């Protein structure tokens, strides 16, 4: 009757709360990765890590 998601995760609080914290942990990592990837693609060619090779090779 009850769905498998309910019976595995939500039924016991001892499973529910760690699942929430684990989801928060993985969400923050994923969120940071996605937003910084978007930022890098939005500023492509402007950041130091993109243009570093031009200047470092010329000095040496």
């Amino acid at each position, binding site marked *: 009757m009850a*769905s498998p*998601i309910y019976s595995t*995760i*939500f039924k016991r609080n001892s499973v529910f709360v760690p699942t*929430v914290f684990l989801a*928060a942990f993985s*969400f923050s990592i994923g969120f940071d990765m996605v937003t910084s990837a978007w930022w890098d693609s939005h500023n492509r060619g402007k950041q130091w890590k993109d243009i570093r090779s031009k200047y470092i090779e010329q000095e040496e």
Partner: protein
Amino acid sequence: MSLSITRINVLPSTRTLASGVPFANKINHSLPPQAHGHGHSAGPRTDSPPTWAQKLSGSVSVLHVNTLPNTLVFSRSFSTSSRSSAQSGSAVGGISHHATTSQRHGPTGVPDFTPYRASDTSSNRTLSYFMVGALGALGASAAKSTVSDVLSNMAASADVLALAKIEVELGAIPEGKNLIVKWRGKPVFIRHRTSDEIDEANAVDVKTLRDPQTDDDRVKKPEWLVMLGVCTHLGCVPIGEAGDYGGWFCPCHGSHYDISGRIRRGPAPLNLEIPEYDFVEDDAKLLIG
């Protein structure tokens, strides 16, 4: 005669007495005293007709009895599209006969909510728990980000960290010479010790010292002595290769340090302090900090 009472509405009373009986003006809730005379006094409410009252003969049919609420001010606002309830509301205090009422509302008077009910309640329950958990996860993530941002705001910035470390070329210091470099506003003594000086530093009986430290405790490599050039007495800068013990001598109040930087004579209480340092690039450079 057949009297059939389909429905009696007793509208909500405003409060409940301590005995659990709803308090209602002008309605007698009391039980009939000694209704049938064999002990127990429990019985039906006297304000509603008992079931045996239906056995009366006759053709009167009471479909609907409305009793007013017992508040002084009658103000209840609700909206409904039901035509029958709008009509029954107009029949204040009276007995109204509506054939459609029992069809729409059923025998209990509660509207039929079957079209609005979920066919599967377990999926609703799963969705509710999921929303609760998702809110908790988002909140925990936001709290964690806030705390870590505040903490990283308090940490030293990159330019401060860059100034906090210095590199010293060790090849430029010949054996038996001192180099004084400035690190975080303070002088740092670097001495390239000869093997004689190392032996001299190791020969000292540690138990006789004011601040007992072996030479191994004070150096990472015996030939390189790195220490903070601030006298532990009052913070003067000692003079190198001076004093009675072949090490450093503080001119301010006459503290003598030996070749390992340990206090031997004078007012200073402690040995010269050792900063954090490391040898990098195959011991060609010294990284202080």
